[in-house]
């Protein structure tokens, strides 16, 4: 970053930083897990299962915890969701399984997410590998992107006996688990441990530093492999629509978070005194909260609509508020002002809803800022798949897929953030799994035809 006098590292003691980045939800101990598991009613056709995008048999795994079989519980979880450990940490359960729990009637759902973590932690700390490569089918599949979608697909394919080559642009696997998720949700290097567990199954080769669109083309993959899965995520960001005037210290929130996640000693990471974040989703919240935890004195998150419209859940908003982030609604940035080449303040226009439409009120205000993070949404980067011989049909700004994650090209599947869906880890995992099953069916059908 820059040499702006008000941006510095180690604003607060290293211990305070370390404590701040501790686990958002500490793990349940054995007794807490027992008490929590006993609250589950073992519902019939349980609504929580329906609400889990990966369809984990929640009443079953909770009952397994209750009967002191946490590793069996972990198997129930991982069979449906190989990223069950990460999902236990990052799923917005308040809008997924726990929201659907019938015990919400009492205002307090069964703590599904934390129980899921209890079970998967038990398995990982016992070091038990549950999965094995399936008997070789001879088929070869290329997976692009080693994020939750790509690795979920690769893992399922490997257990079904298909050989998988994964092409990943970055040096580390895990996708946003490694580069995007808030540090306090996945502590202790969990993302890499989980990736290692997934790859341990065998039959998956990851080629790092290989970027589709630069080092390889979709057409060549489709020619060389029996099937291709694209789990590319979102590699571009929306523009703010403000003339940034070349000022230093204006940055995309995802880039800031990626830098943060890849910094070993957070007390060396510079942060401003007055930080402004623009946006209303999970990325905005995470950037704001982590800026605060790094020692920023004032962090203001500005969102153009009201609290109810925020893509970040109520719970996420509360996390921001309890961490001292100030949230201001109904305002959008229209200009930035600098001083000596660095940012000095952000100018906002108040907005209002008129007949369902967002309009400017004409009223303005300025927020002094020495750092601005833009978190107004990520975009799919279509140039990665731009390929003259293999034209992928798009659905708006994302890759078009059907229910089985098939794209418009016969040998190409896609899933996760680069396709329609909720942009959640758990949705990406489900896409990868469903795509793998669909690929498996297609390959089996092809083999059957070949045999005739």
């Amino acid at each position, binding site marked *: 970053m820059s040499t702006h006098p008000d941006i510095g590292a180690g604003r607060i003691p290293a211990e305070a930083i370390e404590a701040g980045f501790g686990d958002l939800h500490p793990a349940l101990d054995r007794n807490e897990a027992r008490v929590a598991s006993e609250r589950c*009613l073992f*519902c*019939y056709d*349980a609504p929580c299962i329906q609400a889990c995008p990966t369809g984990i048999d929640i009443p079953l795994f909770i009952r397994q915890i209750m009967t002191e079989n946490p590793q069996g519980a972990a198997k129930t979880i991982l069979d449906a969701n190989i990223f069950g450990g990460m999902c236990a940490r990052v799923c917005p359960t308040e809008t997924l399984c726990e929201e659907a729990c019938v015990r919400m009637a009492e205002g307090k759902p069964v703590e599904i997410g934390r129980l899921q973590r209890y079970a998967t932690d038990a398995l990982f700390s016992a070091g038990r590998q549950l999965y094995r490569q399936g008997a070789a089918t001879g088929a070869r599949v290329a997976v692009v992107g080693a994020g939750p979608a790509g690795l979920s697909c690769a893992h399922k394919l490997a257990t079904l006996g298909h050989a998988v080559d994964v092409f990943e642009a970055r040096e580390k696997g895990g996708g946003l688990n490694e580069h995007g998720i808030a540090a306090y949700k996945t502590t202790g290097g969990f993302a890499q441990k989980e990736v290692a567990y997934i790859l341990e199954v065998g039959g998956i080769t990851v080629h790092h530093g290989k970027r589709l669109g630069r080092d390889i083309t979709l057409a060549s993959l489709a020619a060389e492999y029996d099937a291709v899965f694209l789990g590319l995520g979102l590699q571009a960001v929306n523009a703010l629509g403000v003339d940034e005037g070349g000022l230093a210290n204006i940055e995309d929130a995802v880039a800031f978070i990626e830098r943060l996640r890849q910094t070993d000693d957070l007390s060396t990471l510079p942060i401003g005194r007055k930080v402004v974040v623009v946006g209303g989703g999970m990325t905005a919240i995470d950037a704001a909260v982590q800026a605060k935890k790094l020692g920023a004195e004032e962090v203001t998150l500005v969102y153009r609509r009201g609290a109810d419209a925020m893509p970040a859940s109520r719970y996420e908003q509360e996390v921001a508020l309890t961490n001292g982030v100030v949230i201001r609604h109904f305002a959008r940035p229209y200009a930035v002002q600098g001083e000596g080449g660095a940012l000095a303040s952000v100018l906002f226009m108040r907005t209002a809803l008129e007949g369902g439409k967002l309009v400017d009120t004409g009223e303005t205000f300025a927020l002094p800022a020495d750092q601005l993070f833009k978190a107004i949404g990520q975009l799919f980067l279509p140039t990665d798949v731009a390929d003259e011989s293999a034209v992928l049909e798009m659905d708006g700004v994302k890759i078009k897929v059907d229910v089985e994650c098939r794209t418009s090209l016969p040998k190409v599947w896609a899933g996760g953030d680069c396709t329609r869906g909720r942009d959640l880890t758990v949705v990406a995992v489900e896409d990868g799994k469903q795509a793998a099953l669909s690929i498996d069916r297609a390959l089996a059908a092809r083999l059957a035809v070949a045999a005739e």
Partner: protein
Amino acid sequence: MADLSVDFVGIKAPNPFWLASAPPTDKAYNVERAFRAGWGGVVWKTLGEDPPIVNVSGPRYGAIHGPDRRVIGFNNIELITDRPLEVNLREIKEVKRRWPDRAMVVSLMVPCTEESWKAILARVEETEADGVELNFGCPHGMSERGMGSAVGQVPEYVEMVARWCKQHTRMPVIVKLTPNVGDIRKPAEAAKRGGADAVSLINTVNSIMHVDLDAMSPWPHTDGKGTHGGMCGPAVKPMALNMTAEIARSEATRGMPISGIGGIETWKDAAEFMALGASTVQVCTAAMVYGFKIVEEMKSGLSDWMDQKGYSRVSDFVGRAVPNVTDWQYLNLDYAVKAQIDQDACIECGRCHIACEDTSHQAITNMVDGVRKFEVIEEECVGCNLCAVVCPVENCITMVPLENEVDKRTGRMVDGSYRNWTQHPNNPMAKQPVAYDTDAALEPAE
């Protein structure tokens, strides 16, 4: 305010809540604390002959736990008191002197000879205790030596020892029964024949609490080996209630004073025993789990309930439920109920559906017009109560009696008629088959 005082076979106490013979009543220190806490009386931990018995020094207690580690069942392999007789007798005398208004009953277990019983009774009389309770119930250890339940399981012995005791003491004699028998009425009748003034029941139930699957032995164990113990606590209450009712309604023992024991934790538990004929109750496990303070809840709860119901003294409701305990054959087969689900209270867990669907009568929907909904199908519902039992929301499912309406399952008009099995056309042995005749409502002939 209701009067909680009782007079049990001449033994007076300020309330019916007594501590059962067990560790809480093993010495003056504990009993003093119990009386200060407000207990109406105690049955002192069972005395035996010197030299005192020896207890194991491994774990004596085990338990089954419910949610939140509530103790549901409790188990012990303890024997009778392990303190010298002399010490116990001295303490009993001192405590009774300091607490003259509280019931002081002394539990006894000596070898099955007249001499032994005569000798110990004489010594107990010197303490000025109010009565004795004969421990014919202890199911472990002592029974292997021909005492405890080894006596309680043979009605002839029960009668014989009760008779000796009545001959050799002026004190009231209570016989404590073991539940480890086929028919509880037999030892109760024997006690009555022997002249006993009252019975108390139940003592503990033979049981193994858990098996340690690593050690492959009962849990808890003593140096790798385990033995069955005696179970008590809330889990045994239903059995104890039934046995109490059997004695209360049996012709041979009707009217015999009963001290109810087994799983009593709250005023409600106590009131249930009393409604079935017990005029005092005894508590052990609840005190061992929660301490003596629970008696405060018991006293205020019982008293408040009695005020609400207009009972001014305990005897006003003791035995009130006994006439409504009957044999299956006299239940009204013309009566019918249907489950009814309160849709506002329902949280849609689906347990009622799956219970009925998998294991019973397929009488609850899980889907109505394509949406998750649980409704009773009256054409199928037999009114068995399973759904109401499994529903996690209290009173969400109720059993509503049919009144002057057609039972959609059977097509029969339910009009308040009475017809029991002894009168039913399907019963080849029926005394007087009747069709649909309300006047045939007969009280069971005994």
